[in-house]
């Protein structure tokens, strides 16, 4: 291949990318039209995202913004659902509805962070393993497989316990156990792309390895991993809530759903509302991502119809 033809390949590539993007968008619209479940998922996720956004920029419009923290209202202790407090009040007399709504922001952000960190680590390892190959690939993949042979949430538990209580520590703990899937995915994509014409073209044009890796391979290898990571958000939220429930996640008074249930458990069965509503919100959020993910996976890759990868407590 000559320099000129190499250049042509590169040009054609960027055009092909745009075409592909357009086609994928069209596919997505067709899918939404055909699958009401996917649409329902999209609506749930959209609504929760808007709620999280509102909680970020204007938390004061929540019914009882002071109840987000550790305010106490002795006269409202364990008050059952009423028109003023539709979800009732908790053991400090705080409005459960306010806390549950605010919990959306915490869970969505924290889940996104877990996935983002896991994705970064996994991409780095997968990219290096796939591109360098040889013994580096062997060693990295054996380690990845070993991590996959350990139940992830249990490992996360150990890491969280070491780092100590706190939301950020729980996020780190989960991210450390979250990367192997992405590493495998990115590696296989890297292997597929590595010998493509345009990578060859870039090499002929004298690009350095690191540039080829970041500029030419990464964008192509990252796509599937990003889609997967987005759809894994539901499971990240679920795992975080589980850690919170075990006292290894967010600490009081942070209104994290799992931690709220953990606290409310002490007042069962009489004060059922304190545990019920945060749980319903977890269910709703995870269901939203799963519905969306199910539809998208069906559309994008029939392979995913088989094993679904789920973390749950």
């Amino acid at each position, binding site marked *: 291949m000559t320099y000129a033809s190499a250049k042509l390949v590169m040009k054609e590539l960027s055009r092909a990318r745009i075409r592909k993007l357009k086609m994928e968008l069209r596919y997505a619209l067709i899918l939404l039209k055909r699958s009401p479940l996917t649409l329902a998922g999209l609506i749930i996720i959209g609504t929760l995202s808007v709620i999280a956004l509102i909680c970020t920029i204007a938390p004061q419009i929540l019914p009882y913004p002071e109840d987000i923290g550790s305010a106490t209202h002795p006269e409202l202790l364990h008050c059952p659902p009423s028109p003023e407090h539709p979800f009732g009040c908790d053991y400090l007399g705080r409005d459960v509805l306010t806390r549950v709504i605010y919990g959306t922001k915490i869970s969505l952000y924290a889940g996104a962070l877990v996935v983002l960190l896991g994705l970064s680590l996994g991409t780095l390892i997968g990219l290096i393993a796939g591109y360098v190959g040889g013994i580096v690939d062997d060693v990295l993949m054996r380690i990845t497989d070993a991590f996959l*042979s350990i139940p992830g949430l249990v*490992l996360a538990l150990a890491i969280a316990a070491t780092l100590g209580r706190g939301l950020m520590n729980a996020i780190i703990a989960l991210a450390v156990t979250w990367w192997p899937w992405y590493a495998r995915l990115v590696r296989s994509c890297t292997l597929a792309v590595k010998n493509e014409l345009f990578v060859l073209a870039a090499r002929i044009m004298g690009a350095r390895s690191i540039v080829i890796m970041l500029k030419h391979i990464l964008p192509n290898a990252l796509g599937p991993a990003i889609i997967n990571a987005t759809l894994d958000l539901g499971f990240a939220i679920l795992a975080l809530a*589980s850690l919170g429930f*075990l006292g290894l996640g967010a600490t009081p008074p942070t209104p994290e759903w*799992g931690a709220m*249930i953990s606290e409310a458990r002490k007042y069962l069965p009489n004060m059922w509302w304190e545990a*019920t509503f945060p749980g319903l919100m977890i*269910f709703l959020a*995870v269901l939203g991502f*799963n519905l969306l993910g199910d539809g998208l996976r069906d559309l994008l890759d029939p392979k995913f119809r088989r094993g679904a990868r789920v973390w749950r407590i």
Partner: protein
Amino acid sequence: MLAAYILKRVAWIFFVIFVVVTITYVLTMVIPANPALLWAGPHATKEQIEKAAKYLGLDKPPFERYLMYWRRFLTGDWGLSIHTKRPVLADLAKRIPATMELGLSAMIIAIALGVPLGILCGVRYETWVDHVLRIFSLAGVALPTFWLAIMMQLVFSYWLGILPSTGRIDPGLAPKTITGFYIIDSILTNNIPALISSLKHLVLPALALATGPLAIIVRVTRAAVLDVLSREHVKTLLVYGMPRRVILMKYIAKSAGLPVVTVIGLEFGYVLAGDFVVELVFDWPGLGRYAAEACLTLDYPAIMGTVIVVAIIYVVVNTLVDIVYAFLDPRIRY
């Protein structure tokens, strides 16, 4: 060839155990600012911390410490639980049968219900049965196990009062220990009241634990059946006018069953993880509650011990599943 395969898989078990122990070593000794503080627990006295430091060999060079860690792991000295004040390994050993009884029951429920329902879905593809079951299985995967456990307890024990809320058996009814599985022991000793009581106690936690894996097994089986149904060899059976019963129960069941076997090992991981919270909610005297309580009280030696045991159980079960699969599927190349 099969022997070589099995040998390779068993070697893998040891490699994973090596990795797990090394990870726990790093977590215990390398990451914390002062490992002795973690090891002695949040309310430790000065002497207790010093004792822990000595026990962990903090005065020794790192490599020697690592060897010490391994020696202690191999000789079964996994430290003292801060909460129970007993050796962790002994605590764990005592609790394994209760957890296995619960976990296996959940797995059996998930498989016994999930495979037939999944086949039903696949066979009745795109009918209302399929749609309803699909929605249920999507919801089942999204349910937080700990919350489901609490809700089931709330409804069936506290509100309806038809099933016991906590424990493994009514006090004083425990059967003579033979296997440690109450159901099996009470059958072996012909102890009907113990059997009824332990079954009653088992229903809710087992169902709560089974829901997630059940939902996944339904989905996996459905996909596998659809895959088989699109194959040419099913057409051959139809062309030969074979009875539908034989096609379904023999040929599709086996072809679709094989992919399901591969996820059973994976499901076991979810059961083990879910076990922590379910046992905590239902006060089930097993590994999970031990670990969950250890998490809540930051009982560090107990947490690390449970993590190692659970990881070993998981990798052993998965290896067994892989080997069984190799026996079942003639196409496997070792």
